[in-house]
């Protein structure tokens, strides 16, 4: 499967000019809200007609404004999972699931066998229910099943988890991984969550103010996804405040962190961003050092680009990115699997 997009579109004062190609697997369209991700996906789906440009899937031109080509949405064989599930309220779950299959009679695409997809998504017991009686997580699983059973050659997912709470998200993510690994349907996945993208994507396209600013494999691109200089996110809980030194203690999967006092009550969750250039690595547990935060971890990958190298660490299951000079990487003889200590110079926050 290949998807080539090169389009220009305007809506009001917003200008979208995007060009990218995606590979098999999950391609994440990553960007802040208002960066044009949803419009881009609607253009691929055929719900929006772009002002200029081309969309080509598997060598078939779906849109070519110069030649006046525009294949309507219902002839594109592109599945779409919407943020708001959009299940048909007058049909049962089973009828919803079978809706697209009827229109896809005998045509190509990935063979979606009803029983295996229902089992994959764990929605067999919902068959006779009406969409209104389902929970948010169940609705999204049914919506994914419905899109898959229409035998799409490409599946679009527009923030399928955004309307769900943390617990529901955690419930669906494993299904998404099974989907990616089990069905072979290529996916274009829109998200503004680093966590989802890191977990699901093979390729990342970063969109900013209507423009593609970076495209590439997830490990190379994700560090760029956060602001301009890259970083990693840690979900943490506030455990204590220290009035004397005006510090707050956080517990995260990667370990304990001490940060300048936060205006957050004990027990609340925060998301800590650690910029990769604020992380130093040491082979020994550092002693007598000014930095308060040291996390133990292991090198996962090292991607070198000229003088600089981005080192991805696994700290007790959490990802921490460090940006070093290539010279330091050589001097410390860093390699995947090597245990290291990450010295964190500063941490920034986003309340989650």
């Amino acid at each position, binding site marked *: 499967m290949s998807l080539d997009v090169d389009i220009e579109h305007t809506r009001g004062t917003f200008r979208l000019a995007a060009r990218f190609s995606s590979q098999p697997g999950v391609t994440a369209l990553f960007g802040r809200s208002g960066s044009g991700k949803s419009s881009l996906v609607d253009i691929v789906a055929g719900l929006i007609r772009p002002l200029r440009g081309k969309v080509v899937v598997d060598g078939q031109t779906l849109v070519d404004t110069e030649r006046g080509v525009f294949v309507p949405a219902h002839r594109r064989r592109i599945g779409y999972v919407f943020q708001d599930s959009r299940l048909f*309220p007058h049909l049962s779950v089973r009828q919803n699931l079978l809706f697209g299959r009827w229109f896809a009679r005998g045509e190509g695409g990935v063979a979606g066998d009803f029983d295996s997809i229902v089992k994959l998504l764990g929605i067999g017991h919902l068959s006779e229910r009406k969409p209104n009686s389902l929970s948010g997580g169940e609705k999204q699983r049914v919506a994914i099943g419905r899109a898959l059973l229409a035998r799409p050659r490409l599946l679009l997912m527009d923030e399928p988890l955004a309307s769900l709470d943390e617990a529901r998200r955690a419930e669906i993510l494993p299904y998404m991984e099974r989907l990616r690994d089990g069905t072979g349907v290529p996916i274009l996945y829109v998200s503004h969550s680093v966590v989802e993208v890191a977990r699901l994507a093979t390729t990342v396209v970063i969109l900013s103010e209507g423009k593609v600013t970076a495209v590439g494999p997830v490990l190379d691109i994700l560090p760029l996804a956060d602001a301009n200089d890259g970083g990693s996110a840690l979900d943490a809980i506030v455990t204590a405040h220290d009035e004397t030194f005006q510090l707050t203690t956080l517990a995260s999967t990667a370990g304990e962190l001490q940060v300048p006092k936060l205006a957050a009550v004990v027990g609340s969750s925060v998301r800590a961003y650690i910029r990769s250039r604020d992380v130093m690595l040491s082979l020994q547990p550092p002693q007598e050092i000014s930095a308060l935060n040291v996390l133990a971890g292991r090198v996962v990958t090292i991607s070198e680009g000229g003088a600089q190298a981005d080192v991805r660490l696994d700290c007790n299951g959490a990802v921490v990115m460090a940006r070093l000079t290539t010279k330091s990487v050589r001097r410390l003889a860093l390699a995947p699997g090597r245990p290291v200590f990450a010295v964190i110079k500063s941490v920034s926050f986003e309340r989650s």
Partner: protein
Amino acid sequence: MTEEEWTAVRLSLLVAVTATAASLLPGIAVAWLLARRQFWGKGLVDTIVHLPLIMPPVVTGYLLLILFGRRGPIGAFLEQTFGIVLAFRWTGAALACAVMGFPLMVRAIRLSIEAVDTRLESAAGTLGASPLWVFATVTLPLCLPGVIAGAILTFAKAMGEFGATITFVSNIPGETQTLPSAIYTLTQIPGGDAGALRLTAVSIAISMAALLASEVLARRIGTRHLPA
């Protein structure tokens, strides 16, 4: 009730059912166009559809006579090409009732189509349904309560239509004398009061039955897919 009164009741039912059935498909089509499409002259179509609602019924009836009478442009064409004559026939009464009820039908259906979430329609499109299938499998089932309400309104309007009908097809017993015309005739002759009252009772009974039927139907369809 006399034989003549029964004839008027039967004729009224025939005219009303025919008028409703005949305007259902065009009513849905026009309502969909007005609700979902932008086109040149949309305002004009909207106005023409609503015209019978605001014009005096006698004026509508007279315009029908001019257009559909045997020497009218459409009437003459229909007679020469298909041998169909509407003037002074029960079919003409059905046409007059359909025209008078059309704005009510279009209004009810249009509102219910507008209430159907277009995002569901585009979702159906991405699942491979062509626009016609989207309409048949998503839009129509979801706006069915409005379609039923429109049909009942048209039926009720047809049962009571007087001005346009009497102007267009006159008041011929057994051919064009519907319930309202029969009641009107009875009030004009001495000793007709008892007959007029009997027909009035029948008229009220039919109207109430229609209203009840619409309530029951709308409730049954409504509970099928709307949140409780």
